[in-house]
């Protein structure tokens, strides 16, 4: 697959879901570098540290909503406080199982953020990778 997405970050406290997402991406394109974070705090810490070093940053973040301490929406708020460099370089995609209408609406209302349901499909990945 010819792609401009080289590095992907997965933020999901559920290890199994994290594994599935990572596996589906690598099955489609083994060259994509995947960083898995089971803690949203550690993930945002990483982004804060490297917010001005694009070579360390993911092109795309797959973000879960239901996570302890810092949930997906809190994560996006923190992300929005980061540098212009990272906001230009990194795109966020919410990846969730939520059945809560309010959350689905909240996820869709911000057009700069992508949204899809778990499990992620290869069609969806191909759509955003190309």
């Amino acid at each position, binding site marked *: 697959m010819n792609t401009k997405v080289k590095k992907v970050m997965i933020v999901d406290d559920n290890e*199994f879901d994290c594994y599935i997402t990572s596996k589906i991406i690598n099955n489609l394109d083994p060259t994509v570098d995947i960083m898995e974070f089971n803690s949203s705090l550690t993930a945002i810490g990483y982004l804060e540290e490297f917010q001005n070093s694009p070579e360390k940053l993911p092109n795309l973040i797959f973000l879960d909503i239901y996570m302890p301490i810092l949930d997906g929406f809190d994560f996006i708020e923190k992300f929005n406080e980061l540098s212009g460099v990272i906001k230009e370089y990194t795109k966020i995609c919410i990846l969730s199982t939520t059945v809560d209408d309010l959350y689905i609406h909240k996820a869709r209302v911000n057009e700069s953020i992508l949204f899809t349901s778990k499990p992620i499909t290869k069609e969806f990945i191909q759509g955003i990778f190309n």
Partner: protein
Amino acid sequence: MRLIKAIVVDSNIDVINQLSKFADENAIIIDVCGFCDNLKQSISFIKEHKPELIFLQPTADNLASFSLLKELDFNIPKFIFISDDLTNAYDAYKHSAVDFQKKPLDFNELIISIYKVIKLIEMEISFQNQKVNQIKSLSVENSDNGFIAISSSDKIELIKLEDIVYCKAEGKYTEFVLSNKQKILSSKNLGEYSSILISNYFFRIHHSYVVNVKQIIKITKKDGLYCEFAHGISLPVAKRRQEEFVKFIKL
């Protein structure tokens, strides 16, 4: 992470090889503990190993053997059907298979099937836990600990059952009258309390009243039965409840 135990019931060598390879690559989530040609022969193996998932070739023979699974004395495994023949998808639905895969197998499709199986199992477990907890909390509410929790819009009050004189239905609310004349309004209706109260020494004398039998001072007969309490409170017993009431207080 959850490791799912599976067996393969398929006579096709390509399917067996592909599933073996898939299981090797994904050993962190799936353990294929055995291969069998057909369902009939696999039953004893299934009984022994208790797999959570069966990859099944839906041959006419295997479909006919489905009833054998009813003998299992544990949770019936989930199924993923694997076939060239799309009409087997109908059989998959009929037998509540979690997914249907066409040959040749695609590993990303398989991963999604496994995802569906695990999520279904997790949902079933969490639904069951929720039910069990509900039942537990109901038993606690009903247990005779001598107290009742009365919730109103801004607080929850714990009241000793013995202090209640009677409860009165006020539309969708309930008014509790206590022996010290205090009145408490609850935001639940009388019906929601009656199951807790009636297992104790309370009796519903009237559509609108549940009374504490221990607080009754005397019962007067004058155009029907009346329960009299301290502070001059008197409540009527509904005609159609009189007989049952008399039986109850004689106990």
